[in-house]
């Protein structure tokens, strides 16, 4: 037996197990869940600031794609660049936001393998918080992506007919859609084996959806069968809604449908993601 008396590690406070047991709560309240999600969002923002390469996709892509597509396709599709911009810019906004969502899924998958997630699992926190935190933080990325695309458009001569309010509305709609669609990729992030397969699966979904839409070309130029698909493609509805807001300043039924679609996606994929994340534990 040791005869040396050991000092308590944290001398000011002696743990009383019975008191701690009495203080425990059977589950998290909604307020606690929100506070935990915000703490997780704070973590995601810190990580973004420390790894600026995470901003490449939301900065380079809007600049490069807007200019590139405008000058390459402008003449062929709309006669000149200036006439093509009202068609193109909302399309690029939708495309950029979608690829940004995909990055959320890839990053979550990378994150899940890190040691810190072992600790998140043993903490008494809501199971949705580690998933929802990054999704909330990614609002910053959608904001950058959407704003930069419009800015690039303005620089090369785009004059949105919807005015400032219309453009702000279009940006807000894209952020909401990015935020809701991110749950699909979060779900993929929780089921895929590794980050690379998240990327693979996501590309497989995204590429046809963005290009088989009205994002870059008018639908009337398409062959009949393809046109039918393009019309029901949700990306087309999003692009049309963004155009209505930015170019005309009108809130059309497409805007309404886009919002409904976003809510449906959250209602389906947020619970699925949490279930799948629980299985990881």
């Amino acid at each position, binding site marked *: 037996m040791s005869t040396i008396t050991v000092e308590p590690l*944290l001398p000011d406070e002696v743990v009383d197990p019975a008191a701690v047991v009495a203080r425990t709560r059977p589950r998290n309240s909604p307020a606690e869940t929100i506070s935990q999600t915000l703490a997780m969002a704070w*973590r995601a923002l810190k990580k973004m600031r420390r790894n600026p390469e995470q901003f490449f996709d939301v900065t380079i892509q809007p600049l490069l794609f807007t200019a590139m597509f405008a000058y390459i396709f402008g003449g062929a599709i709309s006669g000149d660049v200036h006439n093509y911009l009202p068609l193109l810019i909302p399309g690029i906004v939708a495309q950029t936001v979608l690829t940004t969502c995909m990055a959320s899924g890839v990053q979550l998958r990378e994150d899940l393998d890190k040691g810190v997630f072992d600790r998140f699992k043993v903490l*008494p926190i809501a199971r949705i918080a580690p998933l929802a935190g990054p999704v909330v933080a990614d609002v910053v990325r959608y904001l950058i992506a959407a704003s930069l695309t419009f800015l690039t458009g303005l620089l090369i001569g785009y004059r949105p007919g919807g005015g400032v309010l219309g453009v702000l509305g279009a940006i807000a709609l894209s952020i909401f859609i990015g935020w809701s669609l991110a749950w699909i990729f979060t779900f993929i992030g929780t089921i895929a084996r590794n980050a690379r397969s998240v990327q693979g699966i996501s590309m497989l979904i995204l590429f046809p959806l963005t290009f088989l839409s009205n994002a870059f070309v008018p639908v009337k130029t398409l062959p009949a069968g393809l046109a039918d698909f393009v019309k029901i493609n949700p990306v087309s509805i999003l692009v049309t809604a963004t155009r209505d807001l930015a170019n005309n300043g009108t809130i059309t039924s497409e805007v309404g449908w886009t919002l409904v679609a976003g809510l449906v996606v959250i209602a389906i994929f947020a619970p699925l993601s949490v279930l799948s994340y629980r299985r990881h534990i």
Partner: protein
Amino acid sequence: MTTTAAIDAVGLVKSFGQLRAVDGIDLEVRQGEIFGVLGPNGAGKTTMLKMLATLLPIDAGQARVFGVDVAKEPHRIRQLVGVTGQYASVDEDLTATENLWLFGKLQGLRSADARAAAKQLLGQFGLEDAANKPISQFSGGMRRRLDLAASLITRPPLIFLDEPTTGLDPRTRGQMWETIRGLVAGGSTVLLTTQYLDEADQLAGRIAVIDHGRKVAEGTPDELKTSVGNSTLQLHLAPDTDQELARQIVRKVAGADPVLTPESGRMNVPLDTADRAADILIGFRQAGVSIISVSVAKPTLDEVFLALTGHGAEDEAGLEDDNDPDLATSDETADEALEVQ
């Protein structure tokens, strides 16, 4: 008044496919003690810990932590236990302070309180100089300390330590032991797993020895060691010594059969007390038996295992992988593999 046990587990079972990683373990840990779980890699120590910490579902059996049912109320259990694994579960992209602040905030502390708790813990663990450095610049020992600090931010009454000193240098190891003793002095109960008999001996009041998912022995360190003899006398006899004479002296003086390697002249004698070593040496001197070197070694985990189970404490993780390919993808194997590092 009887106090509730810190851990009261009966018949715990966890299977991965065909393999029963934990095969009916009973465990009772009293409040305020350090309880050691000793066993080789793949014995089921980590799996058992994970079940008690709500990280793995319990297949059969029942466990209570301070009277709270682990399977029925996992959320309450998570408010009662702190877990420190074999690998640092802190965020590499954040600083030490930011890590502790985040864990405090997630557990409902106010921002200022979380910051104060972080500062206090970093001071207590000698990390204040590194408070604002990214974790990637931390040494292995610093990471372990930060990891333990992260488990303590809300002062949980029960702390699980999964091989807290594996891979640490002797000095850092000693510091970690001091820290663990300090935790218990502060009212916490500690359940620690280890591969080292020495560590369990130094720290634990009671020890359970686990092998192939079963508890093969339980008792105080002294009780366990007595079951294998307290120590071994290792003798190297001079080249032209009468080895048979030496053997007879040992038998007569110590009453034990020595293990002799005639070619090298090495002789190992199991001893119940170290005092017998002196008796043997005096016997040698009187009979003119000359020796080159002498040492007394404590029984190793391997010897304890040999005595308790009839087989050594070899790494069994590899064997189990062959039996069950599914296991290769499970968390368990990944963790057990890390133990070796």
